């Protein structure tokens, strides 16, 4: 079983479009939308929900005004300034550490676990999909990502599927660490801008830190060919496989508006490029070595 996580450092680089196309091109796979903070994959791969589970996040403190004597012990102890002068807990600031609960002399603080969202197993025209909806302003998205990946692995094992394709979250923090740790490989979708290069460096360092082999792909590479060259040079210098480049193509947005994966919508230049990127990624994931074909795409 091979688990591929597609990440991007920053949002808006075409990560979800590439994931949707891969989900269409790969045989026998489970799809995961691990961008639980702002899930988008369901817009292009419509799911039919088969199973729905609540997601239990952390605990949260709540002061019962009837029992509270306003002694101030909790306010003194809280390192997150989550308790107001009139002893109301700010739910957004509470970290769920329970220190106030421990020190409250009259047991006036309730400390129950919160349902932070739901996760789903769905059928799609492209195979099973595991996805979630995190409640607004909820924490613990890293934990939720782990739950989704575990479920996807169970399904893949049970069905004897070869692939797990994960649409990862942006950034390098907690949810990304959760979606990359232990994956077979990551594909970083980059764009040829100054910030694209900057972001690629940071996610590549993260992949190296977590010891997951990394590949790079430059989307809209022809918007700024010089910058694309710099990104590819960076990748080569840092032992990242270059999986290919994708040209700017209005079909990308058009496919999104039509709510389809690009490779199912068009046979234009971007769709053809994504097919070839997928072949390189597939080969790399099989061997975890460097495929030579990437060189050809760039020079042709």
């Amino acid at each position, binding site marked *: 079983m091979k688990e591929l996580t597609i990440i991007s*450092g*920053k*949002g*808006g*680089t075409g990560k*979800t479009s590439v994931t949707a196309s891969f989900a269409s091109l790969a045989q026998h796979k489970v799809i995961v939308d691990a961008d639980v*903070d*702002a899930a*988008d994959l369901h*817009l292009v791969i419509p799911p039919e929900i088969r199973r729905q589970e609540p997601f239990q996040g*952390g*605990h949260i403190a709540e002061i019962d005004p009837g029992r509270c004597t306003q002694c101030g012990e909790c306010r003194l*102890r809280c*390192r*997150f300034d989550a308790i107001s002068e009139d002893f109301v807990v700010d739910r*957004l*600031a509470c*970290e*769920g*550490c*329970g*220190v106030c609960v*421990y*020190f409250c002399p009259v047991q006036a603080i309730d400390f129950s676990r919160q349902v932070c969202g739901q996760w789903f197993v769905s059928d799609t025209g492209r195979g099973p999909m595991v996805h979630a909806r*995190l409640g*607004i*302003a*909820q*924490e*613990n*998205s*890293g934990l939720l990502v782990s739950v989704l990946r575990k479920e996807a692995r169970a399904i893949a094992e049970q069905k004897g599927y070869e692939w797990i394709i994960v649409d990862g*979250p*942006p*950034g*390098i*923090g*907690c949810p*990304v*660490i959760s979606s990359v740790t232990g994956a077979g490989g990551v594909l970083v979708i980059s*764009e*040829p*801008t*100054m*910030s*694209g290069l*900057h*972001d690629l460096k*940071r996610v590549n*360092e*993260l992949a190296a*830190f*977590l010891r997951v082999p990394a590949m790079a792909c430059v989307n809209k590479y022809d*918007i*700024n060919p010089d*910058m694309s060259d710099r990104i590819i040079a960076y990748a080569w210098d840092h032992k990242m496989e270059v999986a290919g480049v994708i040209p700017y193509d209005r079909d990308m*947005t058009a496919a*999104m*508006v039509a*709510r389809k994966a690009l490779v199912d919508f068009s046979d234009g230049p971007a769709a053809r490029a994504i097919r070839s990127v997928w072949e390189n990624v597939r080969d790399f994931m099989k061997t975890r070595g460097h495929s030579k074909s990437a060189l050809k795409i760039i020079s042709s």
Partner: protein
Amino acid sequence: MIIAIASGKGGTGKTTVATSLALSLEAPVRLLDCDVEEPNAHIFIRPENETRTTVTAMVPEVDLKRCTACGACDAICRFSAIVQMGKAVLTFPEMCHSCEGCLMVCPAGAISAGTRELGELIRGTAGSVELVYGSLRVGEAMSPPLIHRVKQEMSDSRINIIDAPPGTSCPVISALTGADFVLLVTEPTPFGLNDLILAVETVRTMKLPCGIVINRCDSGTDETRGYAERQGIPVMMEIPDRRDIAESYSRGVPACLAIPGMKQRFARLMTDIQRKTG
């Protein structure tokens, strides 16, 4: 005055709006890039004389000579960051939320406050713009404490512009808390609308006033304007989809400096925001 720029999702032009707004104002501005996982504003602002400070968080340090293996620290820690095993106590600094609970309960005085590096706080200036940003250490999972640190640099005498991280969970909440007005940057596509709806729910949960900026406004559908109208949220500005904007962005040049007339439009955006917040 604190104006936060948010977007639900990255890549909608949030940094373009934040940096262009900062560079278009006559008044002194402090720009705080709170997207500490992928800070980008400095690429466009190009600050000079950068100074860097390491930012740390408290983690427990156990003196095993004093420890009696009573297990009190293990019992209070909600995050399995300190664990008593047999005669030893182990700490897992990366899981620690710095609540200091273990420090407070240890009866043997065996725990002292150590530190773990969260990342860096960087300050620099470019003309009348003072830029402050955080850069999360690669491998560090928790961004909110670093975001808090960046926000401590807010100035009472200046206009503070906060570039928020993407998403709807803890990092965004940390960045938006205390803002007087939130500008939500979106694109008129189905993805953009999906993310905008999440962003609107987030600011509503936080009870913050907001307005919308539609980037690449001529590139997709009209659904976004319809949504804004139904929700009674003002569309404060529309930025066209132009290749020269994309190209200047790719070179690290903010829209307001690359496109004639943009600077005035951003200055007007600011006046509109000030009118809305009174």
